[in-house]
């Protein structure tokens, strides 16, 4: 992996505020993403995993400036996206794209496939007419769809086919970086395999960098180089996929997560850790370590001080007092 990261996220925070009443008093503050530091290196696949409310989806959108962060920096090839002026940001968007979770809602129902795939080209290039149509057909074929579907509408396709079209759209401007937000969660197992294969193939062919967001651990294990585990807006563990999935997980939450995922292969199953309680309300996170109410080995300091994400050796990061103490 090269030394210089393609994307550097520094102290990124995204807040959602609910306001009530006539004077719009602020009643609820959700720290969806809470001072996250993360780097993504060229041509790697960074898996981001966590359960609902952990902020992984918001993180992906915040990087792409689809939601406005409250604070922090997003350095893409050294340029802080938060501080770019509008025109420059628009041009930068060519380098980073996103594929969404729900293929059925990812397309304007009134747009046919040609409209869908050519929209980025119309916005950023001067391709028109037959050239444009040809390019659209090429993009579709690279995603494994035949070129003759150009005049069909999204509702005529299955989930897997729609995701291929979404990938074609995302590739139209030759991006360097792609956020894949649960791209296979809504798909059947056999189709999921097809899409994962496609994404890996494209990554190899085009030297793409992926941020793969999902809650499915077996997919993360398969496709990621490094994995970041998130809980209530914070990254609680970050290490290579190999380490994580060969028993090297250090954070209790990660261990519980890995143990909860039902596996077909008995050899892959880990000792069950059933967590008590529920994911806390993000507007009222627990004091100290957000995980401490559910942590089987929490000690006093856990409810008082927020643990820092520190290097526990060889680039493995974990945010846990116990782990830090052991080091």
């Amino acid at each position, binding site marked *: 992996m090269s030394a210089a990261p393609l994307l550097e996220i520094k102290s990124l925070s995204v807040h959602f505020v609910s306001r009530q009443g006539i004077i719009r008093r602020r009643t609820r503050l959700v720290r969806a993403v809470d001072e996250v530091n993360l780097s993504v290196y060229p041509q790697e696949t960074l898996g981001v995993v966590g359960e609902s409310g952990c902020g992984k989806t918001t993180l992906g*959108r915040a990087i*792409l400036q*689809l939601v406005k962060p409250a604070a922090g920096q997003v350095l893409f090839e050294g340029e802080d996206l938060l501080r770019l002026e509008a025109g420059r*940001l*628009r*041009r930068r*968007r*060519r380098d*980073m*794209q*996103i594929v*969404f*979770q*729900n293929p059925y*809602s*990812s*397309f*304007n*129902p*009134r*747009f*046919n496939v*040609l409209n869908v795939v050519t*929209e*980025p080209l119309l*916005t*950023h290039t001067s391709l028109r007419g*037959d050239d444009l*149509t*040809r390019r*659209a*057909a*090429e993009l579709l*074929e690279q995603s*494994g*769809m*035949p*070129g*003759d579907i*150009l*005049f*069909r*509408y999204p509702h005529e396709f299955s989930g897997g086919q729609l995701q291929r079209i*979404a990938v074609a*759209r995302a590739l139209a*401007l030759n991006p360097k970086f792609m956020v894949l937000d649960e791209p296979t969660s809504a798909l059947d197992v056999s189709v999921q*395999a*097809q899409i994962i*294969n*496609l994404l890996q*193939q494209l990554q190899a062919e085009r030297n793409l960098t992926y941020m793969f967001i999902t809650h499915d651990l077996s997919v993360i294990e398969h496709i990621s180089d490094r994995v970041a585990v998130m809980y209530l807006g914070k990254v609680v563990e970050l290490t290579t996929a190999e380490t994580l999935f060969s028993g090297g997980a250090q954070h209790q939450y990660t261990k519980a997560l890995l143990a909860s995922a039902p596996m077909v292969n008995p050899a892959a199953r880990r000792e069950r850790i059933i967590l008590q309680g529920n994911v806390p309300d993000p507007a009222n996170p627990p004091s100290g370590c957000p995980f401490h109410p559910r942590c089987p080995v929490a000690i006093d300091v856990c409810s008082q001080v927020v643990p820092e994400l520190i290097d526990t050796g060889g680039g493995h990061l974990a945010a846990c007092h116990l782990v830090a103490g052991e080091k």
Partner: protein
Amino acid sequence: MANNLKETPAGAVSEISAAAGRRQARFKEYSLMIQAFRRDPLAVASLVIIVVFILGATFAPVLTPHAAQGRGEPNILEKFKPPSQEHPLGTDYLGRDVLARILYGGRVSLSLGFLVVIIAVLIGTPLGAISGYYGGRLDNLIMRVTDIFLAFPSLLLAIAIAAALGPSFTNTMIAIALTWWPWYTRVVRAQVLSLRERYFIEAARSIGVTDWTIIRRHVIPNILTPVMVQATMDLGSAILTGAGISFIGLGVQPPTPEWGSMISNGRIYFIERPWFAGSAGLAIFLVTLAFNLVGDAVRDAADPRTRRIVT
């Protein structure tokens, strides 16, 4: 690899007639709607009635030999004649052929209805779209203005405007339109709010499409259907409201024919000579009913759930 679908060389695409393909595909959704609509006999009958009235109003001069009377010229000698071969709907208190009056009156009543709705849509839709898309303070502001206008009953506003500016076709139209546009703002805003949650809007933003283009190409085309449904149903109500305002004398003034004022003028003669007030009333009734039925049918045809049974 995982490429298991048929492959077509990229070059073959240029052989596909791009224009024909586009034409074909674009109307698929609408053709489904038209098909569903066609299956409803009541809707089709209502549409026929509306078309008949519109044609009648448009071609009024050719359809009746008494065009001048239709426009207002009195014919005192023939007054109060009951329906006969020469005057199929009889004559009114000034001897004018009632059928001609209905046809010419239709011009006024129908155009009032259409214009009111068109204006309301043109004002309400962009406001609703902007309000829903941008949210925040702008949304708040637009919504409060909308609420203010919603509070006015159209009749009172018409009276006020007539008092201030004098009764006329234009003033009636303005008065009604001013109280109707807020409904469209609301409907559109609600649609846009739910549309904003759909990923394709975010996808467009991630591509770098400008807000204005997003509203134009992604938002508005997807909210047209509810607007269309609302507008169709409103046409009947607009005509009815316009007739009501004319009925109390604040709309078009005589001798210009208008169904509402025809009822009002024929009221006192109604018991013994019902044909002129009655015809006008019947005309209003039929047209309003027809628009309501068509509006219902359009709404049912537009909603995929009522249009067909799906798994």
